[in-house]
Each structure stands twice: as C-alpha cells, then as structure tokens.
C-alpha cells in the first residue's frame, strides 16, 4: 500500500509562545488540486512553508514521497513555490528568471534557454522573454512566476495566494488557466488562499483551517452544504447560524428552542441527542424563503429589513428578528418583484426542516 505523496503526521509548529499549527494530520495525494483555506493567521501559509522547508516543524513529521523531510534544506527539495509577492528577480529578465531553477540544477545554457522559452511560449509570453520583469503587466509577471516554478518539472507545486494582487477579471482567467494546467500536467497543486471563490472554483479538495487546526476537509460542494462546525459555517458561504436547546425529539426531528423562536431540525442519524441538549444548526442564506405574508407551517421568523446588498442577479438581504438575531437571505432579483420591500413592516423568513444543517460542536 503506497503512501500519499505528502503526509503531515501530527505536525506542530510553534513561534515562541504562539502555536501556528497544532497537531496537524493531512494527506495530500498525487495529482490532486488541494486548497488550504482559512482566515489570515490560521496557519495555512505556515503549513505551506513547512512543506517547502522554509520553516521546520516543532513536532511531528512531514513526509514527501515516503521520505522524512523535517531536516531537508529548502534547496534540496523539489517543492517550488509561487509567492504571493511573486518574488521575481528584478535584475533578471523574464527568461533568466525562468532559467534560475535549471541553472541551480546545473543545466547547460542551451538546455536552460530552450526549456525556459518553451514554458514562456506555453504560457503565452513568447514575445516577452527578453523583457525586464518590471516592464511586464501584473498578469504577465504572474505567468513568469508560474513558468519559473514549473520549469524544473516538479511533482508538486505550492501556491501562496498567487492571485491576490490581480484585478478581478484577471483572477477568473488565471483560475481557468491554473485548473487547465494542473489537469494537463497531472501534478499535485497545493494552493493557499483566504478566498472561498478561488478555492471552490479550482480545488478537488478543500481544507478549511482555523487557529492552526484543520476544521474540515472535503470537496467544495460538501463543505458548502454540510459545514462540519460553527467555524466552517461562519467562514464559508452565507449561513444563518442558530443555537438553542432541544425541547423534544420525535422520529429524528428535534424541536430546538432558540432566542429567535422554536425550530424543527432533522437530526443526522449518527447524532446522539436528548431533551435539554444544546444544539446549533445552520441554514444557508440561499435556502431561506422570503415572503411578505405570514406562511403556514414550521420554521417561520418574522423579521424587519436592515439592509440589502445588490450584486447583480442575486440580492442578499440582512434582517433582524424581534429578539435581535441577525438573518441573511439570498434571493433572486426577479423574485423580489412580488414583494414590496419599502412599505412592508414585517417580512417572514421560512425554511423546510430539512434545510437546517446540524453543526458539530
């Protein structure tokens, strides 16, 4: 049974009193596009830097292709990184930047040049090979950085928020290119980002980190619909999170008493719960129904509108119930045509019990 390409085995990283990564177990498989995602300071970049050898784990073991990497120097690894700041060498032109890794490996000048030009051509930079890097646009510099990392044909490519400095439209284009490139090369990409859209758009598997701990690992859709805990539910998507105590359970459906009212929630089969237990659950903002007349049935909250956020076809409404609990509802712009938002004092939010997703504590 062969081991995954990368294994983080009980890895701890401390900086003085601060624990950046805590007892991390993570497998990264060959050929997968893995995104490490989390708010700033969650330890995602530290994890990546440990993989590149730029930080040493305080405890535990990192294995790459079966070999323990803890004491291997950065320059003895083949784990090229695409930096957030790009870190191109400003005194070299585009081609010389790309050649750098080959030069360090002792390739002769002719091989270096042809490989570098090949990569620049592949990334659409054939005409810019001899340009100083400070005369390239943001997108072009980004590609040079990619070519520089890929020219040595590594097994694994590390990317640290590489798109954060680009314009929005360029980000979308580069996402497409990165995904295509990863499929074509069939190598492992480990992509660190704080951006949900980047991680979800590209990654086969997303790892959500918070406070140095992995909060959830899974495919984008799974994480989006089934956040494991409150942290993930708050960080990912637009979730309404409610917490309360169970007042009764009947046939797998719990009635939960919360400050905003009483709600019915489907309990997952594995969940052990009894009357009086605390329970928190999330309802995704796009699964919430909005009406101006009180609907019949369960899970109804009367609310007042606080503000709205318009981003095209979808509108996010921010509402507040009588007890002050905040709610978010995402609705299609055309659905709002039937609702008079201005003159209606009370709006009603409702959702089927099956839309509520129980969170682990």
């Amino acid at each position: 049974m062969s081991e995954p390409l990368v294994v983080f085995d009980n890895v701890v990283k401390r900086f003085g009193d601060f624990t950046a990564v805590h007892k991390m177990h993570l497998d990264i498989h060959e050929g997968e596009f893995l995104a490490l995602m989390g708010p700033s300071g969650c330890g995602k970049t530290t994890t990546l830097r440990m993989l590149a050898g730029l930080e040493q784990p305080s405890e535990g073991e990192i294995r790459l292709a079966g070999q323990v990497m803890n004491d291997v120097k950065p320059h003895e690894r083949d784990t090229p990184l695409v930096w957030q700041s790009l870190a191109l060498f400003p005194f070299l032109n585009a081609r010389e930047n790309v050649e750098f890794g080959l030069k360090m490996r002792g390739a002769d000048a002719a091989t270096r040049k042809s490989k570098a030009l090949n990569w620049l051509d592949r990334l659409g930079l054939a005409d810019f090979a001899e340009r100083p890097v400070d005369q390239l646009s943001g997108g072009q510099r980004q590609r040079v950085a990619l070519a520089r990392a890929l020219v040595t044909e590594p097994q694994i490519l590390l990317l640290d928020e590489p798109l954060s400095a680009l314009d929005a439209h360029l980000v979308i284009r580069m996402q497409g290119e990165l995904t295509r490139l990863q499929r074509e090369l069939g190598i492992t990409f480990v992509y660190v980002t704080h951006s949900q859209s980047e991680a979800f758009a590209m990654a086969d598997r997303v790892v959500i980190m918070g406070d140095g701990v992995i909060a959830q690992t899974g495919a984008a859709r799974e994480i989006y619909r089934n956040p494991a805990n409150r942290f993930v539910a708050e960080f990912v998507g637009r979730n309404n999170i409610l917490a309360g105590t169970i007042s009764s359970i009947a046939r797998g459906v719990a009635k939960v008493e919360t400050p905003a009212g009483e709600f019915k929630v489907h309990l997952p089969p594995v969940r052990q719960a009894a009357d009086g237990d605390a329970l928190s659950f999330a309802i995704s903002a796009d699964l919430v129904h909005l009406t101006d007349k009180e609907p019949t049935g369960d899970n109804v909250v009367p609310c007042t509108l606080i503000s709205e956020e318009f981003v095209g076809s979808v509108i996010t409404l921010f509402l507040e119930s009588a007890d002050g609990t905040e709610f978010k509802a995402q609705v299609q712009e055309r659905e709002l045509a039937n609702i008079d938002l201005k003159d209606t004092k009370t709006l009603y939010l409702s959702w089927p019990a099956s839309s509520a997703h129980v969170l682990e504590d």
Partner: protein
Amino acid sequence: MGSDRTIKWFLRGYVLLLFCFIFLPIFASLVFSFNSQRFPTVPLGSFTWHWYETIWNDPDVWDAVRTSIIVSLCTSLLATFIGFCTAYTDYRYNFRFKGGFLALALLPPTIPLIIMALAMLAWFAKIGASGQVWSIIIAHTVLTAPFAMAVIRLRLNQMDANLESAAWNLGASEWTAMREVIVPFVKPSIISAMCLTAAVSFDEFAVAWFVSGLNKTVPVIILEIVTGNIDPQVNAIGTFVFITSMTLVIIAQVLIMTREKKDAQA
C-alpha cells in the same frame, strides 16, 4: 496665496544663499588656481597653468597623491565589504543584542575626529603599527564602514522579503543565493558605497594627519603647503581634490537615485 508666494521666494532665497556659502569659496579657489598673481586678490592677473605645473613637478605631491589613492582604494574595498556584512547581518538575522550591535556598528562617525585620531595614534603606537600606509587604511576603514553599511542597508530594505527564500526554493544553497541574488540586487549600492567611502577617505584630514607619519596623504600635504606660506599651489591641489571627491559622490548619488526611480516604477 500672497503669503504662500512670499514663503516660496523666501525658501528659494534661502537655498540660493546656502549654495553660495558652500560653493563660492570653492569656486574662488578654483578661479585663483588659474590666476597668475601670488596673492588671492582682485583684480585678477592673467590666466595661467603655472600652479598646476608646480604641483605636477613636485615629487612630494606625487607621493601624497599615490598614498591617497592607495589608501582610499583599499579603504573603499575593506569598508564596503565590512559594511555589506553588517548590513546583511542586520537584514537577515535577529538576535539578542542586535540593538547594541547596530549601535556599535554605526558609532564611529559620531566620535569627534580629533578624539578618534588621538586614540588611533595611541593604539597604533602601542602595537608598533603607527606611521604605516596600512595604519591609515585601518583607521579610515573604521571611520567609513558605517557609511557603506547605511547605503547597503537602505538597498536591502527595498528588497522583497521573499527574494532570498525564493532562490533557496528554486535550488540555490545559501552561498549560491548570496552570489546569485543578494549581491546582484545590492550591486548598485555596493558601487555607490565604494565611491562614497573612497571619497571620504580621500578627503579625510584629522585622522590621516595623526596616523600617517611620513606617508602623507593629499589633505596632509595641503596643510604643510599652507602652513609655510601663502602659495596658490594649494588652490590647484584643492581644485583637484574637490573634483575627485565630487565625481565619486555624484556617481554614488546617481546610482542610488536611478535604483529608487526604477523601483518606484515597478
């Protein structure tokens, strides 16, 4: 509006006066170096190369120029090397007494020159090394290394914090990264530091006068010429020293400024 304009003209006048104070004496010295009369008075006599010819034919001046060139060349190499090492240490490492280390490294220019010169002389005399060319080199290196460090440190601080790590990441060992990335990046500031330290060493009088012994440098020989009598030779040497130093300083400044401009565009 009215007061703005007044302030503007006042400041312009101030700068003009400042430049007059600095450059008029030097300019006067330059003019008198071509003046045929022995005493620096107006009206001027005729144009002459006589004083330049005198110093050209004076073997003492030649010796002094040779000593000065050797001293300033060696000083600039040594001081720039030490300055680079100190600046890199500051850039790369954090350690317990770093504040103290930096204060020490930057200390020499703050010591009054005469004190420094006396201390150097006493020290060299004690270890039997006074009056040598290399004693002046050591003294000048101590004096100028902080300038080199300051210039190179400025450049290192402009460097992308990840640039060196990026080189390691691409397979460069620490020494290779130093050679292939750090040194090329700071090269303009290294040349600039070399020019600056050479200029300071070439001009420096107090320390050189105490330490030099028989190996006089140019500023020392100037003093000797002036102490005896009023001799327009001094104007000629002065002009030569001024032009040499200014050239070095201007090269240094241009190198620093072009880098900054390029970085601002990038």
